[in-house]
């Protein structure tokens, strides 16, 4: 470009500056126009405003797992047995691909309640309860095994099942989200 716009060979001229400034302004304008077109695809206000879910735990028997829907996803609430809690606690951290002690995944004094987002951390299938090599959860899609704390033990999933934000509104009432 410099060649054709200068009189004396390769010295830049004021016209070169104008070309570059115009081009740069055009690029900024194009990016500004593209942003609304791209950002419209992100989760919108109505999706973000999804309310939290309240669940009554009184009918959930020991050894039972229930599934509730939160933000379009399944959430597992497991009423763990003594044995399951013991197993989760006894597992040495060095056996875990994503090391996390059991008590970091439940609320203190409520160790029997395990609340998990029921979405496999591999590619998003819903694992099955009380199955797999560790009798926790098993994802049939590509064979990920989770233990009774929902921690990944074997298979392609890289992370433990996520614990959603939740709190106990009362002894038998839990609010997720």
């Amino acid at each position: 470009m410099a060649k054709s716009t200068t009189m004396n060979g390769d010295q830049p001229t004021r016209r070169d500056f104008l070309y570059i400034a115009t081009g740069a302004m055009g690029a900024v304008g194009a990016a500004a126009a593209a942003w609304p077109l791209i950002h419209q695809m992100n989760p919108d206000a109505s999706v973000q405003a999804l309310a939290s879910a309240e669940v009554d735990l009184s009918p959930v028997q020991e050894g039972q797992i229930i599934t509730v829907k939160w933000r379009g996803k399944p959430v597992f609430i497991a009423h763990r047995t003594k044995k399951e809690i013991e197993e989760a606690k006894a597992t040495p951290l060095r056996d875990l691909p994503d090391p996390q002690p059991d008590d970091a995944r439940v609320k203190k004094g409520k160790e029997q309640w395990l609340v998990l987002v029921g979405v496999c951390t591999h590619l998003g299938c819903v694992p099955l309860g009380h199955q797999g090599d560790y009798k926790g959860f098993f994802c049939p899609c590509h064979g990920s095994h989770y233990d009774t704390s929902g921690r990944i033990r074997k298979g392609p999933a890289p992370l433990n099942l996520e614990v959603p934000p939740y709190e106990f509104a009362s002894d038998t009432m839990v609010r997720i989200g």
Partner: protein
Amino acid sequence: MSGPSNFKPKSAFLQWTERRLPILGLMHSSFVAYPTPRNLNYWWTFGGILSFCLGVQIITGIVLAMHYTPTVVGAFDSVEHIMRDVNFGWLLRYVHANGASMFFIAVYIHIFRGFYYGSYKEPREILWILGVIIFLLMMATAFMGYVLPWGQMSFWGATVITNLFSAIPGIGPKVVEFLWGGYSVDQPTLQRFFSLHYLLPFMIAGVVVLHIWALHEVGQNNPAGIDVKSDKDVVAFTPYATAKDNFAMVCFMIFFAWFVFYIPNYLGHADNYIPANPLQTPTHIVPEWYFLPFYAILRAIPSKLGGVIAMFASIAVLAFLPWLDRAKTRSAKYRPLFKQFFWIFVICCIGLGWLGAKPAEGGYVIASRILTAYYFIHFFVILPLLSYYEKPSPVPASIAESVLGNQPLAPAKVKGSR
């Protein structure tokens, strides 16, 4: 190759339009006078068959869209409504659904034809890369189309495939939410997939135009893999190629019709006749058959990011083929070693496809790993080494000689060519 046409219509009116928009001349020089190598075999008819498939998908798709509802409550029912109530709706849907499979059968044959005869080599690199882009767009289109009926396989296929992007370090989860427009596959996802499923085939049509433009610039390859040297090596597109293409297309339509009318659900999954349930994954989720080899590669690698990288790499490697295989001889006909490795590679791909449909456990996983390794070894080790060490057998001096041997030649009929 296609050069300026000396086409001159008889009617005064068409002469008038031709002087202003020479479209008939363009058609004539591209599809009538266009010189094609005289030794083309039936593997060269799949380009025409692919154009036919694209046309069928666009036409049946547009009419299906007149009856289809892209909402999570309405989609499944609207597809059943198409099947039961809409006049000939069953036919339109079965043609569209099986048409996607036929499209992939044709494209795989077309791609392997290119492998065998070295069609990706100089000077056809851009032509080849445009083909790889078409293949990628087809995969995206078919994937999004399969989500539309909103059955169990639609939903869980969409979930697993979009989650592939969550493997991107750092921004992965944000990228997936961007694709979904929410926190899971839901209404916004379905609706944008419908919009894009409508758009992409027209983008494919655009790239097909570039593909054919590049083809007509460099000329067709042929089974001997040697350049056209004289008029004796070619015949006019019409009637020679036109007749052969049409015959092959009719055979293909018979095959297609056999699926549509006798086994319309053979290539589908029964689970997709169960409405989508976001709280329960079917026990065996399997993609459509045309994705199985890539799915097997994904599952062969025991790490999430590694599997995703291997899967995308297995497709991306195709674009680099012209630079991995540097042998000067194009056709496998004159490359004794390459020919054997070609067939081993075909078996490897079929094996991966078979494994993709099996559960990911035990011996199947080991076999998938071996074949995945072999798939990449073929491209990155075998082809580069063959380029240097293989001694090709003698190549005929011309296409005409490859067809007729060394007999004295009667000039081939090249009516209409330059």
